[in-house]
């Protein structure tokens, strides 16, 4: 069950990441050309591009946790033999999952507050819809590391 879910999630993440970057490139490039050729781009264009950067950050982070490719200091784990390495990886994974879980909870509260207040990010897009990727990303990353804690790679 978990395996089927993760393969679906993998496809969604990869597809989403490509679409996010593709739109970022197209909108950003359109803005430059429109500004220089006919003196003005889309009013919401720059706002959209900056939100896309946030989404790329979180979705990219999700994929990085799927492949366990996050930036880290790996001096110690490189020196240890396999049995000890697994033990250390279990512990650091529990730590990471706990931090992500805590962050997911508090960022969800932040999104909920904005949902009730209703500020907008750009054009008429509400801010909460742009922010929601933060708790989602944190949750997915937390679950992945929980999995690594149970089954260290």
């Amino acid at each position, binding site marked *: 069950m978990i395996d089927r879910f993760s393969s679906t999630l993998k496809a969604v993440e990869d597809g989403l990441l490509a679409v996010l970057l593709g739109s970022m490139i197209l909108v950003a490039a359109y803005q430059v050309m429109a500004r*220089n050729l006919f003196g003005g781009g889309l009013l919401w264009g720059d706002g959209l591009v900056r939100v896309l950067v946030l989404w790329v950050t979180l979705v990219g982070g999700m994929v990085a946790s799927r492949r366990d490719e996050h930036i880290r200091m790996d001096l110690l*784990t490189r020196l240890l033999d396999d049995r000890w390495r697994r033990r250390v990886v279990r512990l650091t994974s529990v730590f990471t999952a706990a931090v992500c879980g805590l962050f997911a909870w508090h960022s969800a509260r932040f999104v909920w507050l904005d949902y009730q207040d209703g500020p907008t990010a750009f054009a008429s897009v509400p801010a909460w819809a742009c922010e929601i990727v933060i708790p989602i990303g944190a949750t997915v990353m937390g679950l992945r590391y929980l999995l690594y804690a149970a089954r260290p790679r």
Partner: protein
Amino acid sequence: MIWAGVAILVLALFAGAPLFAVLLGAAMLGFFASDIDLAIVAIEVYRIVDTPLLVALPLFTYSGYVLAEARTSERLVNLVQSVFGGLPSGLAMVGFVACAVFTALTGASGVTIVALGALLLPALQRAGYDERFSLGLVTTSGSLGLLLVPSVPLILYGIVAQQLDVGEPFTIFELFQAGVLPMLLMLTLLIAWTLWRHRGGAVPRVPFSWRRLGAALVAARWELPLPLVVLGGIYSGIVAVSEAAALTAVYVTVAEVALYREIRLRDLPRVMVESMVMVGGILLVLGVALAFTNFLVDAEVPQFLFELIQAHVHSAVGFLLLLNVLLLVLGAMLDIFSALVIVVPLILPVAAGYGIHPVHLGIVFLANMQIGYFTPPVGMNLFIASYRFKRPLHDLYTASWPFMLVLLVALALITYVPWLSLAFM
């Protein structure tokens, strides 16, 4: 309770927990200790949206990945070789220049060693350079070019420093200009040393030929306008850095997919995902580091640090010397992006207290990091080279140290002659 948290964080850091998790934990612990609602951490991460310059990072990184996927490295080496190949020690110069350009375009993520090293190493050995020199060149040049536009670490330093808003204000453009002379100094010293080492004509020259140059130019025809797209727009002031990044991304995609046809359209999403995983990793660390930095500033940690250091170090030169040593050690342990987002917020206010210009500090910082990439025993490029060229680490240590010595001389000059970085300001 708080100290137990700090202990766990330090242990997690050295045990190899992801850096973003350690910083996130540190930020939450700090705000918790100051009785501030932890939702603030999410608000800080959301500040990524308020930094327009940040768009340049994913766009330039993507462009670099596309260039690395196509046969750009081959064309670059051919072109540079047809220009410099006829000079004494020409091929070594080709190596330095090509690596610098390619690293600036792709960021020093090891791509240079993987893509260019594989071309250069056999070519150098065939041309008569001994193995030690050739290995040393490809290993150490993998981070040459960090100071050149549009290198991602250079842009990232600008973003972090401008967020902090201490010391003299500067523009990203001024930071770009500042890297030019130090970069030329490094190249000059490296080439001078190469010439001296191969004095007496031990290495045969390749005669210059117009036909070769012509062929190389024709082969690189779609990539030749690239420096113009990247630099022309920025230097002429028509477009901002993030806009140049967008144009570069479009141009590179069209050139490699439609004109050269070296990347199939259906392979493009894979390249996009690869590049964005790296960007996601970097920006996630940056985002949580922003939150952590804000806590540190609130807690007046930079001031404390400044007073502590000032009690022992009295001059700017003394501080810079201390900084060099610290950064060399750090550069070998930490990757450049983490070092940038964690260390710069701490040392920039201190440096400003000594009257050091933020642009000068940035160049010194990056020049240090560049050397850290191949500082034994754990510099990242040593591992990449060892893996790529299938040589034991020990061979790479012995091959790299003469180059390291030359670059340390350059670093000393860059550090103690601020004019090199600030000449254009």
